[in-house]
């Protein structure tokens, strides 16, 4: 599918502004094929923006973004709709606040896109959905409505929903931040299982440093819209080179 050299995601010289506010400036980043990267940094540093740009949910003001070589943006020029959808087909995304479809059952949440986008037959889509629900431990909730689920269950459904389109790259944006503490574990367990059993590339924005440490091949620390430091988790957490990284880590993981 993809050559070894071709990264799953590539950001080059990306500039992103909201009006006067510059969120990313000359931002460079790559996610290798099959790589698991944890993206950490203070609130407002631009982590969500990076994920949202990758999913083509945001415009950018300059630079190049590629998804498995497919340009979403080439030197600040947007791809056409067909190409954007081709790039999006490689990606799945899970949001902090789940965004399940409240008017659809859990099963329908999982089958909607495969049926409409991938033209799957109803029974085939349902079969696959049940298998995914089993994988996240929720096969008994297929007929439930989203509002009947706990936060942790909702997020596991959202993960299954993203997986139903069989993406090559998964983007996770603080998927445990909106959860009650006792539900964080069940969601991280699903992520751990995915990380261990699939070859998907994963980009995970998180404040769970302990989890990032064991999950990620590489940790990227961002601040003020720039990558400050990146490296293997033992190095970045154990022996950070940059002062700003050290300050951030001492705030989020007290000794």
């Amino acid at each position, binding site marked *: 599918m993809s050559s070894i050299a071709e990264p799953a995601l590539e950001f080059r010289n990306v500039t992103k502004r909201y009006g006067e506010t510059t969120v990313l400036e000359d931002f460079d980043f790559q996610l290798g094929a099959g790589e698991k990267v944890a993206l950490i940094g203070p609130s407002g540093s631009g982590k969500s923006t990076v994920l949202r740009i990758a999913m083509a*949910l945001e415009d950018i003001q300059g630079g190049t973004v590629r998804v498995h070589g497919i340009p979403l943006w080439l030197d600040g020029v947007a791809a056409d709709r067909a190409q954007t959808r081709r790039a999006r087909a490689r990606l799945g995304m899970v949001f902090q606040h789940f965004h399940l479809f409240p008017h659809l059952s859990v099963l329908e949440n999982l089958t909607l*896109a495969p049926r409409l986008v991938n033209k799957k037959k109803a029974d085939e889509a349902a079969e696959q959905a049940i298998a995914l629900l089993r994988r996240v431990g929720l096969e008994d909730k297929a007929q439930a409505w989203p509002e009947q689920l706990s936060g942790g269950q909702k997020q596991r459904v959202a993960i299954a929903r993203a997986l139903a389109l069989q993406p090559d790259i998964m983007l996770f944006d603080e998927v445990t931040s909106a959860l009650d503490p006792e539900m964080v574990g069940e969601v991280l367990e699903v992520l751990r299982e995915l990380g261990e059993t699939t070859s998907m590339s994963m980009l995970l924005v998180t404040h769970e440093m302990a989890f990032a440490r064991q999950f990620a091949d590489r940790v990227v620390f961002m601040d003020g819209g720039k990558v400050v430091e990146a490296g293997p988790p033992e190095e970045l957490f154990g022996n950070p080179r940059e002062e700003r990284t050290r300050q951030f880590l001492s705030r989020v993981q007290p000794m």
Partner: protein
Amino acid sequence: MIEFLQTHLPPLVAGLRVTLQLTVGGGICALVLAALAGLARRSSRRWLRWPATVYVEVFRGTSAMVQLFWFYFALPFFGVSLPALVTGVLVLGLNSGAYGAEVVRSAIDHVPRGQWEAGRALNLSDQRILLRIVLPQALPMMLPPAGNLVVELMKNTALVSLITLSELTFAAQVQRAATLETVPLFALTLLIYFVLAQVLLAGVRRIEHYVTRHRGSRA
């Protein structure tokens, strides 16, 4: 009592029939216009948004009575003469449609942005997101204000007596002039309007119940 009803009920029922025609015709017209203009006002295409905005603002910002006079008495000067009933249906529809467009727009805007983003992240096209995700959530929000608009439209049908249509209010006036039984006659007329409003509201509640029936205990 029996005599009173025997004298007055038949002409009032004849008037009621016209009132119902205006309500149903105007309602259908309003529904179509509200849906089209409401969606057009949210469009990213300027050539769709702009005419819809002009339509909504003009019809909300001017008197329904003057609109009626315009269509019935002024348009003929431009070579367009419409029958009174058609004019009534059209003006009532245009007027309620303008308010209805705002109901549609506001309900769509109240569906959280995250729903659009989740749809896009699943690679659904914007039309499909609108149709399969956003509108099903917006529809239940539209119904209570839509019910009020339908009752409002029904009450506005009385204006149409001003362009020679003998709907319910007009019929009541005619009977009063003939018999001078003012108080019981208008009491009966009010009662008929009231019952009609209750029937319309009950209808809207049924639809509301129907569109939310699949859901658990949605707020």
